[in-house]
C-alpha cells in the first residue's frame, strides 16, 4: 500500500467515525503541522494536537510545506488525525531536492502523540504530551555514502506548551519546550547514527510566539541538532508569521536558517506552509 493510499484510508476511517468535526478550541491554539508531520510550530513538535478537536471530537488535517534553501529544497506533504483532544497520528512525506548536486531524497515519517496532562489554555500547568516519529528513508544511497548506521530510525519526544492569555501587554503569549531523543542526521534525510556510534542524544527545541490578534501570530523557533556524521550539522532556527483566518485554514511564512547541510554551508531561506482542517 502506498503512502498516499494509507493517508486516504486514515481519512476515510475518520470520516466514518460517528463524531463531530473539531471546532472546540480557541482559534489559534491548535498547532499547525511541523516538518515531520506532528502538530506543532514549523520545525518543532508541540504538546498541542494538530486539530481543533475537543474531548468529544475528531479532526483531520493536511498540510503542504516548502523550504527553499541555497543548495536544497525541502517539500513536505502530510496529514494527521487528532482524536478527542487526546491522541494524534500523522504521516508525512518529505522530499529533499539537492538542487545544486542533482537528485533527491525522500523519507516517510509516521508519527503518534498523546496528550498526557493539562490544557494549553485553561490549565495552570502547561499541556504536556509525549510522541514518537518513525522515520523511513526511501532513498538510502546518500545516507550510506556518508557513513550512517541506519536508513530508518525513531525519534522520541516530550513537549510542554502553554498559552498565557493577555500576558504581554494584553496579547496572548505561547511558548513550547521540547526534549527529543534522536540519532537522526538532518532529521533523518542523511540517515541515522554513524557506523561506529548509533547512540541517541537528547536535543532541546523551543518556540515562542505572540498572537497579535485572533488571526495572526509571530514568533521564533530553535532546534538543537546532533552532528553524528561530523559534517558540521548545525542547530536550526526560524522566525515566523502565521495567518489563521479561521479554524479551517492557516498559512505560515518563515525565514529559516538551517546552517550547514551535508557540508554545504549557510543554508537559509523562505519557509512556506499551507495547512487546513478537512474535517
Amino acid at each position, binding site marked *: 500500500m502506498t503512502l498516499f493510499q494509507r493517508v486516504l484510508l486514515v481519512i476515510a476511517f475518520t470520516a466514518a467515525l460517528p463524531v*463531530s468535526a473539531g471546532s472546540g478550541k480557541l482559534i489559534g491554539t491548535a498547532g499547525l503541522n511541523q516538518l515531520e508531520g506532528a502538530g506543532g510550530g514549523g520545525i518543532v513538535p508541540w504538546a498541542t494536537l494538530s486539530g481543533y478537536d475537543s474531548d468529544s*471530537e475528531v479532526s483531520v488535517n493536511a498540510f503542504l510545506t516548502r523550504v527553499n534553501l541555497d543548495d536544497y529544497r525541502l517539500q513536505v506533504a502530510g496529514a494527521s488525525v487528532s482524536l478527542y483532544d487526546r491522541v494524534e497520528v500523522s504521516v508525512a512525506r518529505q522530499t529533499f531536492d539537492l538542487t545544486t548536486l542533482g537528485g533527491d531524497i525522500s523519507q516517510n515519517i509516521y508519527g503518534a502523540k498523546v496528550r498526557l496532562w493539562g490544557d494549553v489554555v485553561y490549565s495552570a500547568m502547561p499541556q504536556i504530551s509525549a510522541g514518537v516519529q518513525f522515520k523511513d528513508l526511501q532513498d538510502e544511497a546518500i545516507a550510506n555514502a556518508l557513513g550512517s548506521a541506519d536508513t530508518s530510525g525513531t525519534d522520541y519526544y516530550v513537549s510542554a506548551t502553554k498559552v498565557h492569555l493577555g500576558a504581554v501587554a494584553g496579547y496572548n503569549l505561547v511558548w513550547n519546550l521540547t526534549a527529543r531523543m534522536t540519532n537522526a542526521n538532518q532529521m533523518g534525510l542523511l540517515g541515522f547514527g554513524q557506523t561506529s556510534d548509533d547512540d541517541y542524544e537528547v536535543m532541546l527545541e523551543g518556540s515562542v510566539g505572540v498572537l497579535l490578534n485572533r488571526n495572526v501570530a509571530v514568533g521564533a523557533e530553535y532546534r538543537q541538532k546532533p552532528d553524528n556524521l561530523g559534517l558540521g550539522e548545525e542547530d536550526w532556527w526560524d522566525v515566523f508569521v502565521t495567518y489563521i483566518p479561521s479554524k479551517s485554514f492557516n498559512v505560515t511564512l518563515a525565514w529559516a536558517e538551517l546552517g550547514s547541510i551535508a557540508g554545504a554551508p549557510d543554508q537559509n531561506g523562505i519557509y512556506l506552509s499551507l495547512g487546513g482542517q478537512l474535517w
Partner: protein
Amino acid sequence: MVKLLSSVLAIVLLAGCASQPQTLYSELGGEAKVTEIVNNFVTEIEQEPVILAYFEGSDIDRFIAKFEEQICMVSGGGCQYTGDTMEQVHGGMNISEKDFNLTVDLLINAMDKANVPHPLQNRLLNKLAPMRSQMLYR
C-alpha cells in the same frame, strides 16, 4: 498647625488616589461597557441553539445581573458577587469542553461587537478562565 497638617495629609492622600493604576474594569469602560458586553453575549447565545438549550428555564435577567457582577468583581471593579457558586449554577448541566469552548467564542463575539480592544479581551478572559474547571461536567 493642625489645620496645616490636615491639609498636607489630605493632599498626600489625594495624590495617592491620582497615581493608583487603572483597574481592568475602568479600562474596559466600567458598568456601561460591561452591560453592553453581557447583553451582546445573551444575543449571541439566543442565536446558538446548542448553547441556548442550557439556558432553558433559567432566569435570564438574573443571569445578566450576576454575570455583570462577576465581571466587575474579577476585573477589579469593586463589586461584590452575590450569586451562587459556579458549581451550584452549572451543576446538573453536564457541560462538555466543546460546548464550554463554544461559549467562550460567543463571549469573544460579544466583546468584538462591543468594540472591546483585543488586549483588554485577553486580560478579561484570563481573569475568567480559572473558573472553567468549576463549570465542566457537573
